[in-house]
Protein backbone atom coordinates (compact mmCIF):
# COMPACT_ATOMS: atom_id res chain seq x y z
CA UNK A 1 0.00 0.00 0.00
CA UNK A 2 2.67 2.50 1.03
CA UNK A 3 4.72 1.38 -1.96
CA UNK A 4 1.81 2.33 -4.22
CA UNK A 5 1.53 5.76 -2.57
CA UNK A 6 5.27 6.37 -2.95
CA UNK A 7 5.30 5.34 -6.60
CA UNK A 8 2.18 7.36 -7.36
CA UNK A 9 3.79 10.42 -5.77
CA UNK A 10 6.83 9.89 -8.00
CA UNK A 11 4.62 9.75 -11.08
CA UNK A 12 2.88 13.01 -10.10
CA UNK A 13 6.23 14.64 -9.27
CA UNK A 14 7.67 13.61 -12.64
CA UNK A 15 4.68 15.09 -14.47
CA UNK A 16 5.05 18.31 -12.47
CA UNK A 17 8.76 18.52 -13.36
CA UNK A 18 7.92 18.23 -17.06
CA UNK A 19 5.24 20.92 -16.69
CA UNK A 20 7.72 23.03 -14.75
CA UNK A 21 10.15 23.00 -17.67
CA UNK A 22 7.34 23.51 -20.14
CA UNK A 23 6.07 26.61 -18.31
CA UNK A 24 9.59 27.97 -18.42
CA UNK A 25 9.11 28.45 -22.20
CA UNK A 26 7.22 31.69 -21.72
CA UNK A 27 8.02 34.63 -19.41
CA UNK A 28 4.31 34.85 -18.52
CA UNK A 29 4.13 31.37 -17.05
CA UNK A 30 7.76 31.08 -15.92
CA UNK A 31 7.11 31.72 -12.23
CA UNK A 32 4.36 29.11 -12.25
CA UNK A 33 7.05 26.78 -13.61
CA UNK A 34 9.21 27.43 -10.54
CA UNK A 35 6.25 26.77 -8.26
CA UNK A 36 5.52 23.46 -10.03
CA UNK A 37 9.17 22.49 -9.57
CA UNK A 38 9.06 23.29 -5.86
CA UNK A 39 5.85 21.30 -5.33
CA UNK A 40 7.25 18.35 -7.30
CA UNK A 41 10.49 18.37 -5.30
CA UNK A 42 8.65 18.59 -1.96
CA UNK A 43 6.37 15.75 -3.02
CA UNK A 44 9.29 13.53 -4.06
CA UNK A 45 11.22 14.23 -0.85
CA UNK A 46 8.23 13.60 1.44
CA UNK A 47 7.20 10.46 -0.45
CA UNK A 48 10.72 9.09 -0.07
CA UNK A 49 11.04 10.09 3.57
CA UNK A 50 7.64 8.68 4.59
CA UNK A 51 8.50 5.04 3.99
CA UNK A 52 8.43 3.44 7.45
CA UNK A 53 9.64 0.11 6.05
CA UNK A 54 12.87 1.66 4.73
CA UNK A 55 13.58 4.94 6.50
CA UNK A 56 14.38 4.63 10.21
CA UNK A 57 16.94 7.35 10.97
CA UNK A 58 14.70 10.42 10.80
CA UNK A 59 17.00 12.62 12.88
CA UNK A 60 19.87 12.24 10.42
CA UNK A 61 17.67 13.27 7.51
CA UNK A 62 16.19 16.23 9.40
CA UNK A 63 19.63 17.54 10.40
CA UNK A 64 21.12 17.17 6.90
CA UNK A 65 18.13 18.92 5.33
CA UNK A 66 18.24 21.72 7.94
CA UNK A 67 21.95 22.28 7.24
CA UNK A 68 21.20 22.31 3.51
CA UNK A 69 18.62 25.05 4.10
CA UNK A 70 21.11 27.00 6.24
CA UNK A 71 23.64 27.02 3.38
CA UNK A 72 21.21 27.21 0.46
CA UNK A 73 19.30 30.24 1.73
CA UNK A 74 22.28 32.64 1.82
CA UNK A 75 23.53 31.19 -1.48
CA UNK A 76 20.36 32.44 -3.14
CA UNK A 77 20.91 35.97 -1.80
CA UNK A 78 24.20 36.59 -3.60
CA UNK A 79 24.44 39.73 -5.75
CA UNK A 80 23.41 39.14 -9.35
CA UNK A 81 26.98 39.59 -10.56
CA UNK A 82 27.91 36.51 -8.52
CA UNK A 83 25.20 34.29 -10.01
CA UNK A 84 27.54 32.47 -12.44
CA UNK A 85 29.80 31.47 -9.53
CA UNK A 86 26.79 30.34 -7.55
CA UNK A 87 25.65 28.14 -10.42
CA UNK A 88 29.11 26.64 -10.76
CA UNK A 89 29.25 25.99 -7.01
CA UNK A 90 25.82 24.45 -7.19
CA UNK A 91 27.00 22.15 -9.97
CA UNK A 92 29.94 21.18 -7.79
CA UNK A 93 27.57 20.31 -4.94
CA UNK A 94 25.42 18.23 -7.27
CA UNK A 95 28.42 16.37 -8.62
CA UNK A 96 29.70 15.70 -5.12
CA UNK A 97 26.30 14.39 -4.03
CA UNK A 98 26.13 12.01 -7.00
CA UNK A 99 29.68 10.80 -6.37
CA UNK A 100 29.01 10.27 -2.66
CA UNK A 101 25.80 8.30 -3.28
CA UNK A 102 27.69 6.12 -5.78
CA UNK A 103 30.50 5.57 -3.29
CA UNK A 104 28.03 4.78 -0.50
CA UNK A 105 26.13 2.28 -2.65
CA UNK A 106 29.35 0.58 -3.69
CA UNK A 107 30.55 0.08 -0.13
CA UNK A 108 27.07 -0.91 1.04
CA UNK A 109 26.73 -3.65 -1.55
CA UNK A 110 30.36 -4.67 -1.11
CA UNK A 111 29.75 -5.06 2.63
CA UNK A 112 26.78 -7.29 1.88
CA UNK A 113 29.06 -9.74 0.07
CA UNK A 114 29.02 -8.16 -3.38
CA UNK A 115 26.07 -10.25 -4.67
CA UNK A 116 24.16 -7.03 -5.35
CA UNK A 117 27.02 -5.65 -7.42
CA UNK A 118 25.85 -6.99 -10.76
CA UNK A 119 27.81 -5.82 -13.79
CA UNK A 120 24.94 -3.49 -14.74
CA UNK A 121 24.87 -1.85 -11.32
CA UNK A 122 28.66 -1.72 -11.27
CA UNK A 123 28.68 0.13 -14.62
CA UNK A 124 26.09 2.59 -13.27
CA UNK A 125 28.11 3.15 -10.10
CA UNK A 126 31.32 3.63 -12.12
CA UNK A 127 29.64 6.22 -14.34
CA UNK A 128 28.13 7.91 -11.29
CA UNK A 129 31.45 8.14 -9.47
CA UNK A 130 33.62 9.24 -12.41
CA UNK A 131 31.14 11.83 -13.69
CA UNK A 132 30.17 12.96 -10.19
CA UNK A 133 33.68 13.69 -8.95
CA UNK A 134 34.76 15.09 -12.34
CA UNK A 135 31.84 17.52 -12.12
CA UNK A 136 32.74 18.31 -8.51
CA UNK A 137 36.37 19.21 -9.10
CA UNK A 138 35.79 20.82 -12.49
CA UNK A 139 32.96 23.01 -11.24
CA UNK A 140 34.95 24.03 -8.17
CA UNK A 141 37.73 25.25 -10.49
CA UNK A 142 35.16 27.06 -12.63
CA UNK A 143 33.59 28.71 -9.58
CA UNK A 144 37.05 29.76 -8.34
CA UNK A 145 37.93 31.29 -11.70
CA UNK A 146 34.64 33.15 -11.90
CA UNK A 147 35.13 34.47 -8.38
CA UNK A 148 38.71 35.41 -9.41
CA UNK A 149 40.24 33.77 -6.38
CA UNK A 150 43.89 34.70 -6.20
CA UNK A 151 45.53 31.30 -6.23
CA UNK A 152 43.56 29.96 -9.20
CA UNK A 153 45.20 31.03 -12.48
CA UNK A 154 42.89 32.96 -14.79
CA UNK A 155 44.70 31.87 -17.92
CA UNK A 156 43.97 28.27 -18.99
CA UNK A 157 46.69 25.84 -18.03
CA UNK A 158 47.92 24.26 -21.24
CA UNK A 159 50.83 22.07 -22.20
CA UNK A 160 51.72 20.04 -25.30
CA UNK A 161 49.86 16.75 -25.58
CA UNK A 162 47.23 17.82 -23.06
CA UNK A 163 44.37 16.11 -24.84
CA UNK A 164 46.28 12.86 -25.05
CA UNK A 165 47.02 13.02 -21.32
CA UNK A 166 43.39 13.86 -20.45
CA UNK A 167 41.97 11.10 -22.64
CA UNK A 168 44.55 8.73 -21.23
CA UNK A 169 43.45 9.62 -17.70
CA UNK A 170 39.80 8.94 -18.54
CA UNK A 171 40.79 5.64 -20.15
CA UNK A 172 42.84 4.74 -17.09
CA UNK A 173 39.92 5.57 -14.75
CA UNK A 174 37.45 3.49 -16.74
CA UNK A 175 39.87 0.56 -17.03
CA UNK A 176 40.79 0.76 -13.34
CA UNK A 177 37.16 0.78 -12.26
CA UNK A 178 36.28 -1.96 -14.72
CA UNK A 179 38.96 -4.15 -13.17
CA UNK A 180 37.63 -3.41 -9.68
CA UNK A 181 34.17 -4.44 -10.81
CA UNK A 182 35.51 -7.46 -12.68
CA UNK A 183 37.40 -8.78 -9.70
CA UNK A 184 34.15 -8.83 -7.74
CA UNK A 185 32.38 -11.08 -10.20
CA UNK A 186 33.85 -14.45 -9.05
CA UNK A 187 32.85 -13.57 -5.48
CA UNK A 188 29.37 -12.70 -6.65
CA UNK A 189 28.84 -15.93 -8.58
Amino acid sequence: MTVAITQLSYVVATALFILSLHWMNDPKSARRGVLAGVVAMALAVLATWAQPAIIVHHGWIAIAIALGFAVGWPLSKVPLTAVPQRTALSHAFGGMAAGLVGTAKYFLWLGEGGVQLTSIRMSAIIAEIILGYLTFTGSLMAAGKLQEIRWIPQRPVTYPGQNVVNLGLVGFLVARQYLTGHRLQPAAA
Partner: protein
Amino acid sequence: MSGETAASGANLDYWSMLFVFMLATFVGVGVIQRVSRLLHTPLMSLTNAISAIAVVGSIIVTGSDYPVEIRILGAIALFASTANIVSGFLITDRMLKMFKRDGNRR
Protein backbone atom coordinates in the same frame (compact mmCIF):
# COMPACT_ATOMS: atom_id res chain seq x y z
CA MET B 1 12.66 -2.19 -2.91
CA SER B 2 15.48 -2.71 -5.35
CA GLY B 3 17.34 -4.57 -2.62
CA GLU B 4 15.25 -7.72 -3.01
CA THR B 5 15.45 -7.89 -6.77
CA ALA B 6 18.73 -9.66 -7.44
CA ALA B 7 20.29 -10.59 -10.77
CA SER B 8 17.10 -11.53 -12.67
CA GLY B 9 15.20 -8.44 -11.59
CA ALA B 10 18.16 -6.23 -12.36
CA ASN B 11 17.97 -7.23 -16.03
CA LEU B 12 14.34 -6.15 -16.25
CA ASP B 13 15.26 -2.96 -14.40
CA TYR B 14 17.89 -2.30 -16.99
CA TRP B 15 15.54 -2.47 -19.96
CA SER B 16 12.82 -0.34 -18.40
CA MET B 17 15.48 2.18 -17.36
CA LEU B 18 16.69 2.30 -20.96
CA PHE B 19 13.13 2.99 -22.11
CA VAL B 20 12.72 5.76 -19.53
CA PHE B 21 16.04 7.25 -20.61
CA MET B 22 14.99 7.24 -24.28
CA LEU B 23 11.55 8.75 -23.59
CA ALA B 24 12.98 11.34 -21.19
CA THR B 25 15.49 12.43 -23.84
CA PHE B 26 12.69 13.16 -26.30
CA VAL B 27 10.57 14.91 -23.68
CA GLY B 28 13.55 17.01 -22.61
CA VAL B 29 14.45 18.09 -26.13
CA GLY B 30 10.79 18.79 -26.96
CA VAL B 31 10.16 20.85 -23.84
CA ILE B 32 13.34 22.91 -24.07
CA GLN B 33 13.34 23.61 -27.80
CA ARG B 34 11.12 26.69 -27.85
CA VAL B 35 12.44 28.51 -24.80
CA SER B 36 12.89 32.18 -25.55
CA ARG B 37 16.44 33.46 -25.41
CA LEU B 38 15.56 35.76 -22.52
CA LEU B 39 14.84 32.79 -20.31
CA HIS B 40 18.05 30.82 -20.87
CA THR B 41 19.71 31.86 -17.63
CA PRO B 42 16.72 31.15 -15.35
CA LEU B 43 16.19 27.88 -17.23
CA MET B 44 19.77 26.92 -16.42
CA SER B 45 19.31 27.49 -12.72
CA LEU B 46 15.88 25.81 -12.72
CA THR B 47 17.23 22.66 -14.36
CA ASN B 48 20.12 22.81 -11.91
CA ALA B 49 17.64 22.75 -9.04
CA ILE B 50 15.55 20.00 -10.64
CA SER B 51 18.62 17.85 -11.23
CA ALA B 52 18.95 17.79 -7.44
CA ILE B 53 16.10 15.25 -7.52
CA ALA B 54 19.01 12.86 -6.87
CA VAL B 55 18.24 13.91 -3.28
CA VAL B 56 15.81 10.97 -3.24
CA GLY B 57 18.73 8.56 -3.45
CA SER B 58 20.61 10.28 -0.64
CA ILE B 59 17.52 10.26 1.60
CA ILE B 60 17.32 6.48 1.23
CA VAL B 61 21.05 6.06 1.89
CA THR B 62 20.92 8.38 4.93
CA GLY B 63 17.74 7.08 6.52
CA SER B 64 17.97 3.34 5.95
CA ASP B 65 19.31 0.91 8.50
CA TYR B 66 22.81 0.90 6.99
CA PRO B 67 26.27 1.01 8.62
CA VAL B 68 27.16 4.43 10.08
CA GLU B 69 29.98 5.28 7.66
CA ILE B 70 27.65 4.75 4.70
CA ARG B 71 24.96 6.92 6.27
CA ILE B 72 27.54 9.69 6.83
CA LEU B 73 28.30 9.72 3.09
CA GLY B 74 24.57 9.85 2.44
CA ALA B 75 24.04 12.69 4.90
CA ILE B 76 26.75 14.82 3.24
CA ALA B 77 25.14 14.16 -0.14
CA LEU B 78 21.72 15.00 1.29
CA PHE B 79 23.09 18.26 2.70
CA ALA B 80 24.65 19.24 -0.63
CA SER B 81 21.52 18.38 -2.62
CA THR B 82 19.25 20.29 -0.25
CA ALA B 83 21.49 23.35 -0.52
CA ASN B 84 21.17 23.07 -4.31
CA ILE B 85 17.41 22.71 -4.22
CA VAL B 86 16.85 25.64 -1.87
CA SER B 87 19.25 28.06 -3.54
CA GLY B 88 18.35 26.90 -7.06
CA PHE B 89 14.62 27.49 -6.79
CA LEU B 90 14.96 30.70 -4.79
CA ILE B 91 17.44 32.29 -7.17
CA THR B 92 15.41 31.28 -10.23
CA ASP B 93 12.39 32.97 -8.73
CA ARG B 94 14.47 36.03 -7.88
CA MET B 95 15.64 36.34 -11.49
CA LEU B 96 12.10 35.96 -12.80
CA LYS B 97 10.79 38.61 -10.43
CA MET B 98 13.27 41.05 -11.92
CA PHE B 99 12.21 39.97 -15.38
CA LYS B 100 8.65 40.94 -14.75
CA ARG B 101 9.66 44.49 -13.90
CA ASP B 102 11.73 44.71 -17.08
CA GLY B 103 8.84 43.41 -19.13
CA ASN B 104 6.47 46.02 -17.75
CA ARG B 105 8.84 48.83 -18.48
CA ARG B 106 9.11 47.89 -22.14
